[in-house]
């Protein structure tokens, strides 16, 4: 199943390379990896989605902690979290089809952000499922190109995310969770 993890890392050159190299070296498959700024300029945030069983997800976390630049790893899989993905989809569209595409996009709360003679670009934000659904509906028109950001995630309200490993929690140890 998919596991979604958040890694807070030091915003230094080469950190993305370290994380990517780790995944390659340990033979972990990444479904998506998103990196961006946070409220603190010295910290970047990665949202990592891996397709693995729970045991392998624990290995991913444990290995992330081996990287000196990784400050915190949170597991938001199955937690009350908001997860979002953004896609830009360029679809073949002649004059007659534009309205239909715009209609479909609006049902999914997407919108048309560019119109050309032979195509339009649809922008959509949402969960992975939602974007997959719209993509399937647009496919018959002919998708010319598509780009997705990969998922970003954040826990709702003041709920604490799950941390499985030492050093991550307030008292520095979470053996109980790790044993499971």
């Amino acid at each position, binding site marked *: 199943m998919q596991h979604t993890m958040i890694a807070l890392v*030091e915003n230094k050159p080469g950190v993305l*390379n370290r994380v990517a190299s780790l995944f390659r070296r340990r033979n972990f498959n990444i479904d998506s990896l998103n990196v961006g700024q946070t409220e603190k300029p010295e910290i970047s945030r990665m949202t990592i989605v891996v397709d693995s069983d729970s045991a392998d997800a624990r*290995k991913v976390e444990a290995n992330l*902690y081996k990287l000196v630049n990784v400050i915190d790893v949170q597991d938001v899989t199955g937690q009350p979290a908001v997860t979002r993905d953004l896609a830009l989809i360029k679809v073949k569209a002649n004059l007659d089809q534009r309205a239909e595409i715009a209609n479909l996009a609006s049902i999914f709360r997407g919108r048309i952000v560019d119109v050309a003679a032979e195509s339009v670009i649809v922008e959509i934000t949402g969960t992975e499922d939602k974007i997959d659904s719209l993509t399937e509906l647009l496919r018959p028109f002919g998708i010319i190109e598509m780009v997705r950001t990969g998922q970003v995630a954040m826990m709702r309200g003041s709920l604490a995310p799950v941390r499985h490993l030492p050093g991550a929690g307030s008292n520095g140890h979470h053996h109980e969770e790790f044993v499971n």
Partner: protein
Amino acid sequence: MELTGAEILWESLLREGVEVVFGIPGGASIPIFDAMLKYPIHHVLTRHEQGAAHMADGYARASGKVGVAMATSGPGATNLVTGIATAMMDSSPVVFITGQVHSYLIGGDAFQETDVTGITLPITKHNYLITRADQIAQAVCEAFYIARTGRPGPVLIDICKDAQIEKAEFVYPDKIELPGYRPPRTAPAHLLKKAAEMIYQARRPVILAGHGVLISHASEEVQKLARKTQTPVAMTLLGLGSMPASDPLSLGMMGMHGEAYCNLAVQNSDLIIALGMRFDDRVTGNLKTYAPHAKKIHIEIDPSEVHKNVVVDLPLLGDLKTVLNDLLTYIEENQHPEWMAQIEEWRSESDSRNILYWPDDGKLYTAHIIRSIWEITGGDALVATGVGQHQMWAAQYYSFERPYRFITSGGTGTMGFGVPSGLGAWFANRQEDVWVIDGDGSFQMTQAELSTIVQEGANVKIAIMNNHFLGMVRQWQEFFYDSRYAGTPLTGPNFVKIAEAHGIPGRRVTTRAEIKPALEFAKQTPGPVLLDFFVEKEEAVYPMVPAGADLHNMIRRPVWQSQGTA
């Protein structure tokens, strides 16, 4: 005070207590070497950067301090790579310092430019690319801290030439801020109690002592736990010395070439207490049939090692010495007479196959040589090895009574490790007896460092177990490839003459009777000596668990009586 980057580097190394560095200068590190002359740190000029890396590693393992190796950019740095990987796999604290081209040239394929931080990223605990002089002190301070704490490992600092030359204010940091670096310390009380309860309930417990025991300086605690609970101790290759070999509770080495009684104890145990070890495939054999009846407690500082190869019942994360001391407060005295009796039965069966008891059949066996080295050194030399058959025989027949005596490449199995690591270990304490037990294949990989031994006047004795083969591969070919010896026979050279060309006295030994006189000659001769032992060519290391086979399914040494007919 304003100093050049190169001066800042040496000032920082001084503050980290560095006494000796190993390396070779080059175009991109000339400023560093130029500044070196002003500082009371001894530089050992090696003949190849791999040698420098292994020397720093050997120094670190023998001294418990951080070793330092230096190289220039490009090929100098890439020649370190094998040594860095070796230090990484064996959790050895070494700081590598490499010169890099000018910062404004980076990315332009300048002369001797190589992406060293990129290359070494997966084989270092951490690394740095330094482009300004004012970054150097902080990087050195962090590098030493990271290298020696937690699960130790190599850290590389790649310093651009302009950063070595330009000036900056030198202030050595008095604190380190690494928000993402927090090695676990000890386990919570309720889990320690649970562990103590599991240990008390066990009827057939075994302690597995790994390199972590040495790194954490926890051999005393391991022995306390073993004696208080009367639990036998099996050791990994790098854990040898955790428990004195002569102790009745010692099971010696486990794994592929472990003692049969040791592997049988592991396989029949009902509780494994794994201490600072990582269940390497050379230790476990087939994971599906590994210690099938045993509950497993794993005390380990690196969370990524827990459940990695073997899923355990109770992981305790923390520094081994601290965890064991905390755990010992909950441990009750215990006895396992039936279990120990069973182990003694296996042990005496193994004894019946022991080659040490074989009469002289006119052939020269490595086991007898190593046992004689053990005798002549009082069992307390610093022993460094290459990798292969001689290494396994050294592990089996040089019975280590203390930790930090055996310098050997475990995880990477790096041939050529012996001579340089032995020389590095000599720098840790020049009064020690240092013996390099090497193979003819391993020796030739770093033979050039004989010159370094001579240049440094190091008292290192070298004993080559010369079977004219890459012996371990030959053994696999004999057992598993119908004795097709592809690429394993080695011809020459005359090692005694090579030694003599270096001004090192040497002797060749071809019979068992000559062993002791030759060793006596080596002992009595001041400075380095090389002994070339022409050992039995097609002798195999026993027992052997074939790769991937069940740990209890060992190929055993035939008993002596059957030799004539086999």
